[in-house]
């Protein structure tokens, strides 16, 4: 039998992982909620931002500056994706839209392979590890978690307290009604894409603390992110938040009990099963 301390540690790690997954899921969900399209390519945008940080770091940039750059790059990428790829196919059947972002995924992954090869690149951080009651908590996990929580708080305030944020929520609920208020749908979409991209950039900045980047990084976190979103109910922000931690806990604990891959397998199987029980997600979208 496994020493319970490892289980506790896994549970804690699950929470720490969940923070970043939640950030990814919220960004994806925001875009889906407003524009009604799943960006399969989303996590690959994260990958590009991670490369940006890596190269900035290699060129001697201080980390905080590189991170800021990544966030800005993310926003730009978000806008670019919307304007160049999504906008022309807004009226197309959903499957076309899914495939278009899938094609983009292919393009970005392959281009990254071409430019930077499949070598893993990582940024080294000399940060301490804390020990709390027998559990080891590296700062490389604590800091990203803390920042992700702050970011989500900021997002929450943005969406509920600001005019632009409320408008985004309104468009997600009724696009046509919002047009009747004078909101140019195109403008709202671009803003939403920028915010979604911004979050991808931030997620990238947080992920470099623990993970090395390579062109197929999206394969690692992409499917997981989609599943979290669907599990929480596509478009449902609170659902995505909750689902992120559920999945991260399953992955973490099962990963310690069996193997890392089995952790993912079990998480995915849980996802499939829940889909059958509650196809709309555990907290299905309000109306």
């Amino acid at each position, binding site marked *: 039998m496994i020493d319970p301390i490892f289980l506790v540690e896994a549970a804690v790690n699950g929470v720490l992982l969940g923070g970043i997954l939640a950030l990814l899921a919220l960004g994806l969900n925001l875009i889906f909620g407003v524009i009604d399209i799943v960006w399969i390519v989303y996590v690959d945008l994260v990958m590009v931002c991670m490369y940006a940080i890596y190269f900035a770091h290699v060129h001697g940039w201080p980390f905080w500056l590189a991170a800021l750059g990544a966030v800005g790059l993310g926003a730009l990428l978000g806008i670019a994706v919307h304007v160049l790829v999504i906008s022309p196919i807004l009226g197309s059947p959903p499957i076309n839209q899914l495939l278009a972002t899938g094609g983009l995924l292919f393009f970005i992954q392959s281009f990254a392979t071409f430019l930077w090869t499949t070598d893993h690149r990582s940024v080294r951080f000399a940060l301490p590890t804390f020990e709390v009651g027998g559990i080891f908590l590296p700062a490389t996990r604590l800091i990203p978690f803390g920042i992700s929580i702050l970011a989500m708080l900021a997002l929450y305030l943005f969406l509920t307290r600001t005019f632009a944020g409320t408008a985004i929520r309104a468009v997600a609920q009724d696009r*046509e009604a919002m*047009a009747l208020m004078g909101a140019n749908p195109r403008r709202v979409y671009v803003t939403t894409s920028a915010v979604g991209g911004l979050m991808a950039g931030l997620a990238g900045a947080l992920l470099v603390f623990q993970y090395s980047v390579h062109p197929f990084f999206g394969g690692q976190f992409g499917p997981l992110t989609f599943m979290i979103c669907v599990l929480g109910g596509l478009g449902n922000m609170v659902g995505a938040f909750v689902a992120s931690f559920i999945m991260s806990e399953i992955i973490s604990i099962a990963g310690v009990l069996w193997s890392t891959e089995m952790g993912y397998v079990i998480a995915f199987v849980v996802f499939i099963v829940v889909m059958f029980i509650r196809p709309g997600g555990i907290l299905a979208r309000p*109306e």
Partner: protein
Amino acid sequence: MLEVRSVTAGYGAFTALWDVSLSVAAGEAVAVVGPNGAGKTTLLRVLSGLLPARAGHLSLDGISLTGRPAHEVVGHGIAHVPEGRRIFPALTVADNLRMGAYLPAARRRFAESLAGVYALFPVLAERRRQRAGSLSGGEQQMLAIGRALMSRPKLILLDEPSMGLAPVMVLRLFDLIRRVRGEGYTILVVEQNVRQVLKIVDRAYLLEVGRIKREGRAAELAEDEFVRKSYVGL
């Protein structure tokens, strides 16, 4: 103020409006009545820019609005209260009203508009922090109208405001519309409830199968044989 000339519009292969013309003068209250499927909602969607007309022209105070998209039309002063209310259910009452003042010009006078709406609809003030989706049908209708008022429009389009409301609410609603009109707003209301609506408007048009069959002063139309034959309750 509003000029609609020979508008034809429809969906796909189906034409819902044929050569429809009407006008609304400033300060007037005009009704468009007719049975289900007559094209009343289509008419309002064309007026507010949600649906492009296939032929014809529309203008407000001389400015052409033909073919303009919805978010531009509202900027010219037409506020559309859609069929079924279409309030934002997950937003609070206050946020719904805030969204009504999306336009920059409206946003500048937000506080003033809000006070006016709360004065007109005190129940909205009471429930300002409540989730709009939890309001009753009548309250939601008031919210929808209040939201439209927030954009400080010249012309308000009301699409079937009495639909789905209990008879008591319907009476209160039409009374409220009368009061809104009394504040100086120009109103174009589309309704199936012919009897009630003719009591509160100046003129009316009868729309059937996409064409204007009758028009005239409200009192005249209420007496009209054709109208009386077709609509029970007159």
